């Protein structure tokens, strides 16, 4: 996939006359055995420090989340007060804890909306911009702009559109909170998730668009020409020839879309702290951590559900990358 890189980045300067430039075609990397002891120590340090940080601050807490999810720890007292209670937390979560299923459903709806609405729009815009018309740069800049804003800021900006009496939508519709047909975009628990999804898509579409645009630019123009010579129309060329070639990008976009849907937090938190129609798994985890009662064991079981869902796309992505590395 180096040509993609070369598309977007100034390519690494070519090196001419390097030693062994025309040597054996096989992979010839430096072997460890030829390094001096100091060199080896330096290399070890280069790997050890970042690995330590990632293992200690990311991998360890991930494992601890799983372990704690089988305990009834409330965070008070030392580690010796931790008692294992088997699957109790999970049973409670699935049967008694009211916000769980709404949150789970909202995460799934979020994911479905991103995959079936936002991502196709992003792809569609990328295809339009890929036609190389005049002004493409400007269009791209505008459509991508929301991506640089944090979801927190996106939340504020859209509150100004949605808010009951001061917001743009209700003012333009001429409805106030006293009218019978009034829509409380963010307060009505049947509507607010969709209102938030529109706001979140505003950001996600631009992201997807840029990824696809890079992929489309890297498609060999000869493929398209060949298809057209064979009599394919534009639609056929896209769906039968171009889209299949985009497969690596599709994988990346899919993974990013799933992960972003699971990470959704800021915008719901800003709007109403993730209550009343905006419950999300990520918010339930934090509610149990810093809420009135700090239920560490129980909160961890929600984190584990989140972990299990995210492992799907993560493993898929890793398997694909390794396979491509091998070919």
């Amino acid at each position, binding site marked *: *996939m*180096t040509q993609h*890189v070369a*598309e*977007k*980045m100034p390519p690494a300067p*070519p*090196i001419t006359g390097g030693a*062994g430039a025309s040597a054996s075609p096989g992979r010839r990397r*430096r*072997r460890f055995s030829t390094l001096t002891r*100091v*060199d080896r120590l*330096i*290399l070890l340090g*280069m*790997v050890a420090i*970042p690995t330590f*940080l990632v*293992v200690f601050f990311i991998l360890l*807490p991930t494992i*601890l*989340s799983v372990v*704690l999810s089988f305990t009834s720890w409330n965070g008070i007292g030392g580690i010796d007060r931790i008692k294992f209670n088997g699957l109790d937390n999970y049973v409670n979560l699935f049967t008694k804890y009211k916000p769980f299923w709404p949150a789970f459903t909202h995460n799934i709806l979020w994911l479905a909306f991103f995959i079936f609405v936002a991502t196709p729009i992003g792809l569609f815009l990328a295809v*339009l911009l890929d*036609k190389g*018309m005049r002004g493409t740069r400007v269009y791209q*800049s505008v*459509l*991508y*702009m929301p991506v*640089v*804003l*944090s*979801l*927190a*800021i996106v939340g*504020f*900006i859209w509150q*100004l559109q949605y*808010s009951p009496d001061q917001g743009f939508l209700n003012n333009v519709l001429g409805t106030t909170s006293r009218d019978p047909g009034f829509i409380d975009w963010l307060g009505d628990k049947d509507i607010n998730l969709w209102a938030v999804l529109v706001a979140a898509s*505003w950001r996600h579409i631009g992201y997807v668009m*840029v*990824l696809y645009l*890079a992929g489309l630019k890297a498609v060999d123009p000869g493929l398209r020409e060949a298809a057209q010579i064979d009599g394919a*129309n534009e*639609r056929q*060329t896209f769906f039968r020839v171009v889209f299949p070639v985009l497969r690596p*990008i599709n994988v*990346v976009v899919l993974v990013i879309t799933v992960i972003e849907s*699971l*990470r959704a937090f*800021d915008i719901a*938190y800003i709007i109403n702290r993730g209550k009343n129609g905006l419950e999300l798994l*990520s918010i339930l985890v934090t509610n149990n*951590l*810093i809420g009135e009662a700090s239920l560490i064991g129980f909160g*961890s079981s929600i*984190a584990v559900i989140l972990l299990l869902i995210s492992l799907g796309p*993560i493993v898929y992505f890793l398997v694909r990358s390794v396979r491509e590395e091998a070919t």
Partner: protein
Amino acid sequence: MSAATQPPQGHTRKPRDWNRTFLHVFLIAICIVWLFPLLWTVYQSLRPYAETSSKGFVSLPDTLTLDNYANAWNKAELARYFLNTLVIVVPAVVIVLFLASMMAFAVSRYSWRFNLVLLMLFTALNLLPPQVIITPLFRMYLSIPIFPPLSDNGLLYDQYLGMIVIHVAFQLGFCTFVLSNYMKTLPKELNEAAVVDGASVWTTYSRVIMPLTKPALAALATLEFTFIYNDFFWALMLMRTGAKYPITSALNNLKGQFFVDNNLVAAGALIVALPTLVVYLVLQRQFIGGLTLGSTKG
């Protein structure tokens, strides 16, 4: 569309031109829709609250002023929160790029037994939702002792150091992934040439590979600046003192306290969004380059 099968002759050009015009109109319409929320926020922020509440929010302006910006800036002491952000973002970006470049160098330029495993571990962990790790991390931040010059309460919790550490750890995966992909595209013979010249590993890293990696580093620095600047979650969970909050997280607290009407909220939100927007408009190439560099590897 069906014209594509015919050879391009004079009479096929006309519908094409029409198509183009239609496409431009369509894209311009989309762009207006896209910009609208932002433009509305700007408009709102320029109008005094008294006027919008008496004339209605959707109305032509009598007065446009920057008062809301001045008020937001002064009343909420935004300068302080910007400074807090700076104290976190600058070291975090520098450290994460430095560590990731070394890691990427080691795994992409030398063959190790654990190369692939490490790279996969980094990639997998950088995709996790932060909420998966927050509960144990929160407890770890409360129990790891840190000595005074680095921490004024003896902990990682509620400290700039703690914020820098988690940003570095959490972003390392992505940066390593991007940089190692970039370094793999550099010719392997570079290392061999360096060895022939008697260069040590460190010299190969700092004098040979790093200078060639500059474009990727620039792109990543731009991207990481916005990622960390835009962080809301980590500060919300791992900081307690309101006055020490970075700007993105502080905005939510300030909303109830100082930003009482929507005009002030609009001004405040735009002030906070401004640095990332400026970085984006000035360094657009780096920005988009970094993003696609990280994704088109697959």
